[in-house]
């Protein structure tokens, strides 16, 4: 009989689909003459938490909305769990949980009634609904607010109801647009832990403009700026990437600025960013150096060159690169350098 192999193949396909990877290829969205996002491509592996990082107005929400099937893209394709978000909209909608920028709540419903309603429109079978609603109430610590009208909830609780709403049908893919916005620090930690506990079984895309959030919760990061992908990689990769482009700060003693510049100029890999006196008429100067080469290679060279030129070296240091610096570097440098190459 051919029934069994076919059934098995279908089961395999089902597993692949429920695994819920996300593929985004050359996505663009324009509103009239305004380009919200341009040629955005990235992949999210099943079970991964992908952080979408960018300043306000960078195109995060637009990307999320396209992924959730709410907005049609102008160009490019996005596939969720193997389904095109535009062509197979219904299949995608059933497989995603989506928390928009503003939690979509009905203020005159109780938390429980609202979650039941969402479970129903997300096609959770009637028999499973009470169990699923109970579970998300527990997971999002909403049990004691079960019978409260949503309009009477504080902002933090409303946000949690919004997250609960995205989880109630146990979707393989969860898209969260700024999930921790408006929460107090304790709640932020709770939500982060909740998100981390969902990873593995669920593929999660979350957007944020808060940097520590990304390094704390995400497996990988897409940094987006002015509608374009500026960098993709794990937080560690991005940090390493920046270390090579890092700046060194030196405190030297010299009578004239030109002497310092003359000493450092011959070094091929080093670029002098600035030379400033520590104070007016001070013989000490603060020097900033920059290079695209690995720092371990050129720092000793620079020190040697300075000493050989008879310049006193008081301090030399490099600051540990944080994601914050990468973010600032990528999103504030305008046009001086192209976007970073995609990390492996």
């Amino acid at each position, binding site marked *: 009989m051919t029934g069994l192999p076919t059934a098995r193949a279908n089961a395999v396909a089902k597993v692949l689909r429920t695994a819920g990877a996300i593929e985004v290829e050359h996505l663009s969205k324009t509103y009239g003459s305004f380009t919200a996002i341009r040629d955005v491509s990235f992949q999210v592996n099943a079970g991964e938490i992908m952080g979408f990082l960018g300043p306000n107005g960078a195109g995060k929400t637009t990307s999320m909305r396209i992924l959730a099937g709410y907005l049609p893209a102008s160009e490019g394709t996005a596939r969720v769990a193997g389904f095109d978000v535009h062509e197979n909209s219904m299949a995608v909608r*059933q497989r995603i949980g*989506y928390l*928009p*920028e503003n*939690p*979509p709540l009905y203020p005159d419903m109780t938390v429980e009634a609202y979650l039941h309603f969402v479970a*129903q429109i*997300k*096609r959770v079978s009637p028999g499973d609904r009470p169990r699923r609603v109970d579970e998300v109430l527990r997971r999002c610590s909403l049990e004691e607010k079960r019978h409260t009208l949503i309009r009477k909830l504080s902002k933090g609780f409303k946000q949690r109801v919004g997250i609960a709403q995205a989880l109630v049908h146990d979707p393989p893919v969860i898209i969260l647009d700024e999930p921790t916005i408006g929460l107090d620090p304790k709640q932020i930690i709770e939500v982060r832990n909740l998100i981390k506990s969902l990873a593995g079984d669920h593929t999660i895309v979350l957007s944020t403009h808060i940097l520590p959030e990304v390094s704390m919760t995400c497996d990988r990061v897409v940094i987006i700026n002015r509608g374009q992908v500026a960098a993709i990689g794990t937080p560690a990769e991005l940090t390493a990437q920046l270390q090579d482009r890092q700046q060194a700060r030196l405190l030297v003693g010299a009578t004239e600025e030109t002497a310092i510049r003359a000493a450092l100029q011959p070094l091929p890999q080093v670029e002098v960013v600035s030379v400033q006196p520590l104070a007016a008429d001070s013989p000490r100067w603060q020097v900033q150096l920059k290079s695209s080469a690995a720092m371990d290679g050129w720092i000793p060279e620079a020190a040697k060159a300075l000493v050989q030129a008879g310049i006193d070296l008081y301090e030399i240091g490099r600051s540990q690169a944080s994601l914050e610096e990468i973010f600032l570097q990528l999103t504030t440098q305008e046009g001086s350098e192209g976007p970073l190459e995609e990390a492996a």
Partner: protein
Amino acid sequence: MNGAIAIFRKELRGYFTSPIAYVVAAVFWGLAGFFFFNILVRVINFSQQVDLFAQFGQENPFDAATILSQQFLNLLGTLSLFLLPIFTMSSYAEERRRGTMELLATSPITNLGVAVGKWLAVWVFFITLLLPPLVYHVLVLSSANPAVDYRLTLMGYVGLTLLAGSVMALGLFISSLTDSTLIAAVATFGLILLLWVIDAAAGQEENWVAATLRHVSLLQQYSNWVQGILSSSSLILFLSIIVLGLFATVQSVESLRWQQS
């Protein structure tokens, strides 16, 4: 379909828990009751006069039950048209304002399912509002002598739900065009005034313009139902308006996704 049922139940529950709906119901029932009593007293007075004349040999056949029914149904129609904009004003406008459209648009439920669920809920709520007047109306008719045929009265009520259903479908469409409930209510009321204008323009004249207007005038069709003049064309007119309204709503909601910024 499942989605339409979910929307229907959510919306209906919303009507039964919303203070606005209770205010509307109170106004509707209060005014309907007042005018029913008023009409009843006038009809009784008039029939006493007719009886008096009859004693002096002036026979003047007078169907009190029918007059009561027709006047009351016409009144219910007018009253409903005043209140209908409030019924549908928030259907979509409120969802747009609160951002819950984004939830509906990313759930596995079609725009048609949402529209049908919303329409059905507001229609059922309206029918609920009609039940008390229907009960006392029938109670009074049951004491009529000679006995009256209730079917005529019931047809009038069916006509009223069709008229209201048509206006609601158009109101739903208007509500989907804006995120302000106030604008939706005012615009829907404007549409109802337009219906009155069409009705007045139709008049009784015997030219083709007036005849066409009479055909498409929802109010004219409703008063035909009240008088017991039933035709398949008027039923089709009401049903087409409902379908048209729902279809326009679906299109408007669909286009919302394309223009969103």
